[in-house]
């Protein structure tokens, strides 16, 4: 038996190219469906876990899929905005805690997410380095963003204007990185987080500007003489928030009317959830409440239908591939007619040839299996990235 493998091995080594091609073909044919399933599983796990953790979501009436993808997975498409008062409305019912999210902008290609500090508690996000944002202009990076951009606490990051056609006045703001979040294996790893108020500064709803006149203002005097601080139209607003100019930053208008993308509602119990959902049944209202899990399930069903189709096609491909391999062997037997004859002349039984062939096939299968495992192993860490990429874009 050992001799069979030895001979088979020598033979395979002698015909290196043929062996290599066979091993590669077989391993890839095996790796493809396995890898695809790995990606689908990762996507399912990743999406279901996220959706399960997010009981209710309120956003602009329209596509529930877009809303879920935008608010939970920070998809690039974005979501039409709603007003901050939606969060207050949920809080006022006393049935649920609201978590407003503003996912409109991107920074260096990564989603820039405006949240309240509660979001970090809710998702269990803790800084692996540094601290959570404290002051206007602070940001905290998801683990993958920090790695990709090579940034850490103390660095700065410029928010690029989200939309070139937005004349309302978004201007680049230098964000101070205060921390890097521990890896969460969720879309949070790919996001840059700022406080909602900082997101509104980027939007241009709030700003800071230098006092242009040395008017004798009495900042602590509500009844003091009315002072008019005039600023000309060419006034330069600050593009970086520092301890010195922080005091000059202010918001205009009622924050309740400020934009957000969605509100995650965390009902206190099942009864509260039902009551709250009842509040959103009106078809005429501009907002709607959805259960991300329902939406994700629907989405995954479609994905799995596509996956099943793929499986069917792959099965056919595998069958054809095996026929081709069989053909290769049959042809090589033809070519090896003289060699086989020599073996008989040396006094070997017919079975010996079969054993040799069997050893060859086994060796090739083993090699292909090893290559396939190696491919899957190296690809495994990227499964969730691939799932993210294919599902979200």
């Amino acid at each position, binding site marked *: 038996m050992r001799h069979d493998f030895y001979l088979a091995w020598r033979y395979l080594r002698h015909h290196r190219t043929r062996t290599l091609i066979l091993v590669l073909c077989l391993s890839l044919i095996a790796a493809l469906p396995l890898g695809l399933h790995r990606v689908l599983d990762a996507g399912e796990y990743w999406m279901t876990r996220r959706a399960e953790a997010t009981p209710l979501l309120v956003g602009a009436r329209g596509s529930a899929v877009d809303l879920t993808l935008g608010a939970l997975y920070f998809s690039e498409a974005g979501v039409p905005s709603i007003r901050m008062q939606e969060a207050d409305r949920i809080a006022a019912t006393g049935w649920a*805690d*609201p978590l407003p999210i503003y996912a409109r902008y991107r920074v260096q290609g990564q989603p820039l997410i405006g949240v*309240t*500090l*509660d979001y970090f*508690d809710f998702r269990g996000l803790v800084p692996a380095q540094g*601290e*959570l*944002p*404290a*002051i*206007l202009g*602070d940001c905290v990076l998801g683990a993958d963003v920090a790695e990709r951009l090579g940034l850490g606490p103390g660095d700065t990051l410029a928010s690029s204007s989200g939309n070139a056609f937005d004349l309302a*006045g978004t201007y680049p703001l230098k964000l101070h990185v*205060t921390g890097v979040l521990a890896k969460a294996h969720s879309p949070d790893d790919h996001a840059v987080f700022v*406080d909602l*108020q*900082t997101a509104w500064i980027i939007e241009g709803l*709030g700003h800071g*500007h230098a006092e242009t006149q040395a008017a004798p*203002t*009495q900042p*602590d*005097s*509500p*009844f*003091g*003489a*009315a*002072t*008019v*601080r*005039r*600023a*000309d*139209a060419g*006034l330069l607003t600050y593009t970086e928030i520092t*301890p010195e100019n*922080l*005091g000059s*930053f*202010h*918001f*205009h208008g009622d924050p309740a009317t400020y934009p957000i993308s969605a509100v995650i509602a965390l009902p206190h119990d099942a009864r509260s959830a039902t009551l709250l959902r009842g509040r959103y049944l009106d078809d005429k209202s501009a907002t709607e409440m959805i259960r991300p899990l329902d939406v994700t399930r629907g989405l995954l069903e479609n994905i799995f239908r596509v996956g099943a189709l793929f499986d069917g096609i792959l099965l056919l491909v595998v069958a054809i591939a095996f026929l081709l391999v069989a053909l290769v062997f049959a042809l090589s037997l033809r070519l090896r007619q003289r060699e086989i004859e020599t073996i008989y002349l040396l006094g070997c039984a017919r079975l010996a040839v079969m054993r040799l062939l069997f050893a060859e096939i086994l060796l090739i299968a083993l090699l292909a299996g090893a290559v396939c495992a190696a491919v899957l192993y190296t690809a495994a860490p990227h499964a969730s990235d691939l799932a993210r990429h294919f599902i979200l874009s």
Partner: protein
Amino acid sequence: MPTFRILSLVIALVAAASAGGASAIGEHKLEIVASNYPLAYFAERLAGPWATVILPAPADVDPAYWRPDAKAVGAMQKADLILLNGADYEKWRAHVALPRLKTVDTSAGFRDRFIRIENAVVHSHGPAGQHSHEGIAYTTWLDFDQAAQQAEAVAKALIAKRPELKTAVLDALRSLQADLSGLDGEIKRIAAVKPNLPLMASHPVYQYLARRYGLNLKSVHWEPGEMPPEKEWTELDKTLAGHPAKTMLWEARPAAAIADKLGAKGVASAVFDPCANRPEAGDFLVIMKQNVENLRTSFQR
């Protein structure tokens, strides 16, 4: 036999661990941050031994003008409850990131009753045109009925955090509100004796006090330790001509020179301390009772 011994050891360990865990939960005090002393006082009275109440503004600073730095914000973020006065008191609120779910705006319940300050700072910039940054009077707690509502908001937040403390908190709330309503009734009685008695205030912080108790109060903008310039004194004379006040209310005892100069004009100085920061001696109730006594003396003048 060894199996049994190991088993009993495991049981003992588990029991010890769970007992330790239980006592740790029982001993974990609520950490409460209050943005001014009245709220800190309310929280201390309502939560009693179950909470540690922190007033982050330093003792020598009026919390209304205090601004937290990143470190102070970090500490606030870690607290279980952040009590805010609201009514534009926390000017730093828009500059820092705080967890909204842990933040309680104690004056939200009477938001529609806030006193807006006229002559607010106006400025203009860009094509948006002129706008004003309106101010809101913020010493809400000097209306003791409003103070009672703020105390109730604190109590509600405490109960939401620790439902098991409900009875204790509600008992404490009843006693606190009785004290506040005592102050309320007392000032009402004092003011009713001489309605429309003209009074001066050294600082514009008594808007709610004046509204609630019908005080006829006009305000200058003086600091207790700073001699006002001559122009201010002329303005005061003009005001006094049409508003013959015999008392000026001060946040703290004014410098002797100022008090003397006022006295020469027939205006006595009386302290009505808003008590926004922790007093050196006594507590909120002691200071307020003293304020009420000072006010009584003013009305007897």
